[in-house]
């Protein structure tokens, strides 16, 4: 769509990520992309399609199926002066590289007394909603956010898909970027000069006065849709996109809660021990007396994600689950 906003251009989330990779490859010759099927296949979600032809096999490296080795190789290459972008097909597969991510990437700087930082970026797909069942659909970004030494980014918008990568590459420490697989086909507008964005702050995506929804990733759009529906009932919902799960930007959601006095966390991860629990605890610690209602959480039902469409939909956070919780919360008068 070019009307109205003449300078804007149409792009998909997938294209935004691809543009970000291309930009990084042009800007810094130390940058290269490595992972399973990133080259000849074009990426399992077609993110890197065409990049092999453009940059050649030295910089767009197809790897064997060996998550631990190629993630560790990324760590070593980062230590050796390169700026690797490692792609892991899905977060479930990243568990095969959990040793390298947790025991090496996250520990080296502290364990070496500050000698060796690891400027590595790992991108991976996350999330359910595509009927890929229990070994391709989980949302473990909150789990990685448990680990000191890592930074965990969850770009939801096109701007963030386009802009977070370069900032992550400039970061001296390991950064994990989680791309929700339901977003790759999402289309929207990007300014022609779209570029790097900061990665330290959450963002207010919709203003409101009655309730704060704190969310990230694909759930952001469900929250925004729910907020639209609730507005028709006169309920004004503020929606915060966390953008980064580690370090968490407490200030942005606490400021919002000081205004709305109600907080609902929508998280595609599981409830027990998840990032929603962490956010809730921080609200209790820092904004307890601001609350007019108990903090609520809407998370994925605690099951391995099933294949059947109706079951998967029932397991994931949905707009029609957000709305009644929000409605109930604003009826409570603290």
């Amino acid at each position, binding site marked *: 769509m070019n009307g109205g906003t003449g300078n804007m251009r149409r792009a998909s989330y997938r294209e935004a990520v691809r543009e970000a990779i291309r930009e990084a490859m042009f800007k810094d010759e130390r940058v*290269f992309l490595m992972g399973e099927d990133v080259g000849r296949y074009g990426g399992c979600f077609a993110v890197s399609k065409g990049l092999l032809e453009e940059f050649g096999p*030295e910089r767009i490296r197809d*790897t*064997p199926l*060996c998550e*631990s*080795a*190629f*993630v*560790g*190789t*990324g*760590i*070593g*290459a*980062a*230590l*050796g*002066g*390169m*700026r*690797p972008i490692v792609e892991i097909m899905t977060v479930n597969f990243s568990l095969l590289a959990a*040793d*390298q991510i947790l*025991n*090496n990437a996250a520990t*080296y*700087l*502290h*364990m*070496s*007394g*500050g*000698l*060796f*930082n690891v*400027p590595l970026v790992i991108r991976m797909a996350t999330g359910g909603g595509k009927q890929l069942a229990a070994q391709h659909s989980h949302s473990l970004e909150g789990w990685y956010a448990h680990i*000191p*030494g890592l*930074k965990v980014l969850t770009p939801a918008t096109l701007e963030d898909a386009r802009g977070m990568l370069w900032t992550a*590459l*400039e*970061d*001296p*420490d390991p950064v994990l970027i989680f791309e929700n697989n339901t977003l790759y086909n999402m289309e929207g507008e990007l300014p022609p000069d779209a570029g790097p964005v900061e990665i330290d702050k959450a963002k207010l995506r919709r203003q409101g006065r009655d309730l704060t929804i704190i969310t990230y990733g694909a759930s952001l759009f469900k929250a925004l849709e729910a907020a639209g529906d609730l507005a028709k009932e006169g309920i004004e919902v503020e929606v915060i996109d966390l953008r980064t799960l580690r370090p968490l930007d407490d200030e942005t959601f606490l400021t919002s809660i000081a205004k709305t006095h109600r907080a609902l966390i929508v998280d595609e991860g599981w409830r027990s021990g998840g990032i929603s629990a962490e956010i809730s605890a921080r609200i209790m610690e820092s904004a307890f007396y601001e609350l007019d209602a108990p903090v609520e959480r809407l998370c994925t039902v605690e099951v391995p994600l099933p294949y059947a469409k109706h079951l998967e939909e029932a397991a994931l956070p949905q707009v029609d689950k957000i709305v009644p919780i929000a409605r109930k919360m604003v009826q409570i008068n603290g």
Partner: protein
Amino acid sequence: MNAEATKKQKKMKIERDHGLHLLRQMLRIRRLEEKSAELYSATKIRGFLHLYIGEEAVAVGVMEALTPEDAVVATYREHGHALARGMSAGAILAEMYGKQEGCCRGRGGSMHLFDDKTRFYGGNAIVGGGLPIAVGLALADKMQKKDRVTCCFFGDGAVAEGEFHESINLAALWQLPVLFVCENNLYAMGTALELSESVTDLTRKAAGYDVAARAVDGMNVLEVEAAAKKASAGVRSGAGPYFLECRTYRFRAHSMFDPELYRTKDEVEEWKSRDPIPNFIDRLKKQGLLTDADLEQLEREAAMEIGEAVAFAEACTCEPVEDLTRFVYSERRKV
């Protein structure tokens, strides 16, 4: 020693200075390790402590094949590698004391010695976990067209880990300059090689990845050195990775918590008769390259160095607790 090995040894000519250098390096490691054990018993050192006694010829021989620009990735039994690579005994001991003057400010301890000046990338205590890092360091060198070698030490236990197979495959596939040095001391902690591996000739595993491989007597520093030099020359010239198996033995327990139920005293004694240090001393003496006075001097120097290192560690200070969370993330904002 069999007749062929004796013949081979005789063929290996050695300069006096170099012979003394190799002996000095092995003695320094031996005395450092003995002192570490003593300090552990005195509770000056805590945590896990894995001693390299018996295996000195491997680190000393291999380090001779490396340049200062090369990189080293080692295991949790790495005091000897660190010392042979050029790290100071003081920085190593202070680290084991948990002091901020230690090479890692006391955050790593015995199992995690790191040093940027000598490109020493740990001190890695997840068996097999260092191999992918070595592959990555080598990839960085290759992409940056640097003629450097990454030397990766690991034990026979690591060969059972997936990371070994993934890493050697990747290094071979991409023809990366990695010198894989397998320190085969016959036991993965307490599990004998034949209880771990369906194929106990480990060089055959490397051959399966089309990687040049050789096994050497890891108790013979000259043999290790010669093989490592040949291997590293090939690796440096772009011939791809190399797998060097050094057959060795650890004389002490796996760590300080090991009653050694899994091996016999006879076996240990038999291997001790092949101790790399006395055997090398005998050889140097027989060749007229070493006098008793030389040996006394080497021992005196080693004792003095280790004594000074202990005094240094004793005088070191603790990192302030306020600094506990420093270096979880870099203090520089950008790379």
